[in-house]
């Protein structure tokens, strides 16, 4: 593994498969009565959140704590204009406190790149979502969830539906799923595709109904209501009619096809409640898997080369071996 996880595109197939395999070990831990490993004891993980995010921050916090790392949470609300302490000064402060890894969520695309490359910090940087750029651990947890239901992703057809233009989840998934051999189709109204999407190596479609019957997994993206005021689409109702996943559309899916959503959902907008709560829906499982995948990422970035979960009972509790 590299030192940082900034983009899903940085991962080779071997890297990605190592994360998924490690995550599987971590995931098995969730079924044990004691869910904690000593692997990162004495290491410090800082969660640096410059943008509201309850679930991602909690997920990283749980992941770091289950690896016995010390966790410092830093949350600074604020937009680009209401400048509080700068990213640089925050990074310097946390660096001075001895952070080993910094998990950063930021409203500015590229902020984790700055953190990793501007010389402000020597920690490992994990991108936990930057602006409208990327969210690589989300893509990893999505891929992990898919492999648990679909097996090897080689040749599998994945549909990602919604606001591709503003979605960091779509960008990271498009990169990672292709690395893993899947065929990705992005579905959106033309206004919500970025310019140049045809160079991403993915299929694109404006027609959800044409894509659904072939998909092995359907990932619905959150569509923020404020996009409506910017004329990306005429109305919420029209969006739902053309791009929402409802019971009728769910009927067109193959039996094994799973339905995913990175959350938080807007029920009734991009997905109806009956679909979200259906047996096909793996949305809650995605959250559980998120912790395992983030444990794997933190473990591997912070130098874990040996198996994180000891198989031999004599080694159990032998912290030094795993540190």
């Amino acid at each position, binding site marked *: 593994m590299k030192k940082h996880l900034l983009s899903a595109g940085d991962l080779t197939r071997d890297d990605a498969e190592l994360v998924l395999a490690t995550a599987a070990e971590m995931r098995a831990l969730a079924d044990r009565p004691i869910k904690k490993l000593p692997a990162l004891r004495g290491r410090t993980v800082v969660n640096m959140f410059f943008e509201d995010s309850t679930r991602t921050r909690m997920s990283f916090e749980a992941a770091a704590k289950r690896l016995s790392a010390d966790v410092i949470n830093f949350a600074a609300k604020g937009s680009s204009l209401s400048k509080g302490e700068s990213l640089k000064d925050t990074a310097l402060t946390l660096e001075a406190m001895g952070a080993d890894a910094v998990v950063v969520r930021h409203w500015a695309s590229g902020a984790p*790149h700055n953190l990793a490359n501007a010389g402000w910090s020597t920690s490992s940087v994990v991108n936990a979502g*930057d602006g409208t750029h990327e969210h690589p651990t989300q893509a990893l947890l999505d891929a992990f969830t898919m492999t648990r239901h679909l097996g090897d992703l080689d040749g599998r057809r994945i549909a990602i539906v919604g606001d591709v233009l503003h979605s960091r989840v779509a960008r990271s998934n498009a990169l990672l799923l292709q690395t893993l051999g899947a065929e990705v189709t992005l579905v959106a109204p033309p206004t919500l595709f970025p*310019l140049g999407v045809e160079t991403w190596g993915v299929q694109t479609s404006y027609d959800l109904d044409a894509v659904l019957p072939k998909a092995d997994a359907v990932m619905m993206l959150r569509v923020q209501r404020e996009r409506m005021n910017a004329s990306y689409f005429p109305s919420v109702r029209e969006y739902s009619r053309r791009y929402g996943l409802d019971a009728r559309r769910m009927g067109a899916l193959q039996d094994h096809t799973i339905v995913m959503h990175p959350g938080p959902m807007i029920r009734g907008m991009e997905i109806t409640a009956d679909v979200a709560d259906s047996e096909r829906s793996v949305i809650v499982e995605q959250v559980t898997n998120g912790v395992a995948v983030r444990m794997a990422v933190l473990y591997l970035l912070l130098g874990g080369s040996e198996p994180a979960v000891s198989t031999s009972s004599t080694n159990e509790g032998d912290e030094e071996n795993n540190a």
Partner: protein
Amino acid sequence: MSRYLLKKARILGGEATDIYLEDGRIFAIGSDLAVADAIAPEVEVIDATGLIALPGLVDLHTHLREPGREDAETVDTGTQAAALGGFTAVHAMANTDPVADTAGVVEQVWRLGREAGHCDVFPVGAVTVGLKGEQLAELGAMADSAARVRVFSDDGKCVADPVLMRRALEYVKAFDGVVAQHAQEPRLTEDAQMNEGELSGRLGLRGWPAVAEEAIIARDCLLAAHVGSRLHVCHLSTAGSVEIVRWAKSKGWNVTAEACPHHLLLTDELAATYDPIYKVNPPLRTAADVEAVRAGLADGTIDIVATDHAPHPHEDKDCEWQAAAFGMLGLETALSIVQATMVDTGALTWADVAERMSYAPARIGRLEDHGRPLAEGEPANVVLYDPAVTRTVEASEMASLSRNTPYAGMELPGRVVATFLRGRPTVLDGKLA
């Protein structure tokens, strides 16, 4: 009184000849000029062997930041940078604080330039009050002031209202002014961060589409033709803009255009670093755009090179891309970049460089004593330039108060050896005189 004999300089890259400066004028040009013994002790002789002599460069687009942002640049430091870059005149953009939208502010800037003495400063007046795009500033008062403003621009902001733009173009005819438009359709560029294209989509940075520039340029060309006035297009950056200006010129309309050094050399690929040193407005474009801008500059569609020298303090660039300021330094590297991209590639001769960087910008700005040929009797505004050396750009060595050069660490050809402003050296041996 200063007297300088420049030995064996190559005027516009031609045959070596001597140039004698006296009394603020070019007194004599010829081979093996001899100095009378009586005045010999007062004459400083400079060996200009191998150096090219160019008329003092004129920048139509400089941000000197004073008044208001003296932490980024002052008239004094900015004009030092100008002199080191071979400039003898710069036009100081109006987006200061307070905005240069009254006779009082333009006179202040003009006077600060005279006191600094490194190069002549010609203030640009704002087109609209406070650059707000709502109401014309008192253009006539600025034109009639001691600063004699002829170039008007809301640079940084676009005069987007078509009626206001039409009125401005009409109004400046009364004093032979020109409206220099920062062509950026505001609605198409809300929160725009970089060129809109394949890369902006990947990087998740909001795009600044070429059409936002081209649509305004097309509209303004039509307006200028309609009212029979002069339009100058600031820092055009796209292939489409070059085509539109070429078309407007083919109609015989009074339209001039400028390109910046960075749009001749750098491309949007640099944004992939997320290093805001490359954040500029208009943004760095594609390699195809760079080629088109070079071709436009070569065939005269683009009349001039202007620096858009835009100093920013360190903290405004040492941050997230989205939080960073737009703009990059330009004065101290402009001539080297023009050499690298246009002269060394065979697209322009040194005589063409004199046209694009001295004569034409002076004509557009209606300057009388700048942009003059190197000939006997003309004002002694002269640059000696060594095209044979290469140098590595060091941000820390710049005279500008700011350090936001995108060329740091880059090897560039050429070096300004000396600059003379009305016969007085502002730069000698590559250093401020």
